[in-house]
């Protein structure tokens, strides 16, 4: 038994095997050094998404070249491998259409840059901060701290709203007032609130927009601008202040109301709901 093993080992040429291992190890080292050096040189010119992708491409590309040299050293005929790889590629291609689509979409997203890591975006039903833009998908953190993975193919095909692209943002506040109110006075109140609010920008100027004659109220919209980081705070505080100001000035925000006429020529009759009333016919309340 021992003699057979020794005889087998004796047939293996030691020197090429050592060269193969050396080439492979050198490949790991060179790939690491070169990819690291290129990243350091280009670090300031590329962003946080492009750098790791470029690093991986360089590392695995150089490593592949060294591994192919190592295989040739061992005596493998690479043309056979290339042929097999071609057939395998077709098979893998059919199987991984979605992944390939995601990969290509990811490259387009990185080149186009509609958003960056750190931006807040809205995709479909999800709104959140972009944590990573990877080759196959992007990762979001929603405001209630959920982790969402969205394939890049979906990002390319659907509308993406970037909420933090520009430094300022508009806040639209819908307000309905009773038909009997003086619209000029209401408008002056709303614009006065915007003027006094420290978070409202002076330019672009706040506007009160007439939205329409609603079913139960006259619908207005107060349009004010603010820095994007103050959007939520302004939204909350302006609603509060509008309510307080309207209460102070006895301006009615009406509930939905309906007027019922029994017939065209008669006066409308009042409807009063009495709790606990019993109907004699059915004996039920």
């Amino acid at each position, binding site marked *: 038994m021992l003699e057979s093993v020794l005889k087998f080992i004796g047939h293996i040429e030691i020197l090429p095997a050592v060269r193969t291992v050396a080439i492979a190890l050198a490949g790991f080292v060179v790939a690491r050094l070169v990819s690291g050096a290129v990243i350091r040189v280009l670090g300031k010119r590329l962003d946080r998404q492009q750098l790791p992708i470029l690093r991986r491409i360089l590392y695995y590309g150089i490593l592949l070249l060294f591994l192919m040299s190592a295989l040739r050293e061992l005596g493998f005929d690479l043309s056979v491998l290339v042929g097999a790889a071609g057939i395998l590629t077709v098979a893998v291609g059919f199987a991984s259409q979605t992944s390939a689509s995601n990969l290509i979409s990811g490259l387009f997203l990185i080149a186009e840059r509609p958003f960056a890591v750190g931006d807040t975006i809205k995709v479909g039903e999800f709104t959140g901060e972009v944590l990573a833009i990877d080759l196959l998908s992007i990762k979001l953190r929603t405001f209630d701290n959920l982790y969402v993975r969205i394939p890049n193919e979906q990002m390319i095909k659907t509308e993406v709203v970037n909420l933090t692209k520009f*430094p300022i943002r508009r806040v639209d506040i819908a307000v309905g007032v009773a038909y009997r109110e003086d619209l000029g006075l209401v408008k002056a109140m709303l614009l006065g609130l915007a003027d006094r609010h420290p978070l409202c920008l002076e*330019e*672009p100027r706040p506007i009160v927009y007439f939205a329409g004659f609603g079913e139960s109220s006259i619908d207005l919209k107060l349009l004010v601008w603010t820095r994007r980081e103050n959007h939520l705070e302004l939204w909350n505080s302006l609603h509060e202040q509008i309510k307080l100001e309207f209460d102070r000035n006895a301006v009615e925000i009406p509930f939905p109301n309906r007027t019922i006429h029994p017939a065209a020529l008669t006066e409308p009759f009042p409807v009063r709901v009495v709790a606990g009333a019993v109907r004699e016919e059915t004996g039920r309340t």
Partner: protein
Amino acid sequence: MKAEEHDLPRQWWGDFAVADGESLYWQIGPMQLQWVNAGSQWRCAYRRLADVDDESTVGWQLTRGDATPAFDENPQRFVFSQPMRHATVLPALADRSVITRPTTALTIPPRQSALLLFSTPLWFQLRCAGVSQPLFEVPISRPSDTWFGPSTCEGELAYASRTHARLQGEALPPRPHRAVTPVRIENRIDAPLLIERISLPVTLLSLFVAADGMLWTEEVTLRREQAGEMAALQVGQGAPLLAQAATLVQGPRNANRSGILLRAFAALFH
């Protein structure tokens, strides 16, 4: 304007020494500020009076007191490894451009120029003695934020300020919480220049105090050589001629001011 104690500077800024357990109290325009020395810590608090607006000429007051807080709005607290008695207080110009709107829009005809006086709000800076960076700074009257640019996508955040845009020679009301900038506007094209708002790059300007105590910046020249909003900016060297016997109080926040072409005039948003 007065300093209640004979050992306090003649202006509301300067070098101050406050013993442990004592305080200094400022009233400058609409703002009241108290600085308390509590041994190894300083406590500051400030508030703005609602009934004193930015146009007010109430002047300033500076008094010494004990460590009892006069009010507790906007408290700040600074802790040191050892007791600190000395502080430097300085006025400073705004940390962003100031968009000034003349109370009445004015037009400069073609090939004409005008020298206008614009005033901008000042900041109150508190520093440890001998340290260049301020420990704490606050605008004396808080100007509104505003946006200045051709659209809501492109532009810069700035402060909004109203001004009378007085001409040279008109009497200037004494306001210790504002600095005056002489702005020479040269309209070198064949179209009138309507000035509804103008962007003053105050971060590039220094602050000087004249003999009468009024604060000035360098004279700024905005030269309009093409249609549109852009203008070549030129900042004068040293205090303006209108500031008599002026001395430098503080240099610019941003010293890089050569060859600047900036968006100085803006039409209404479209």
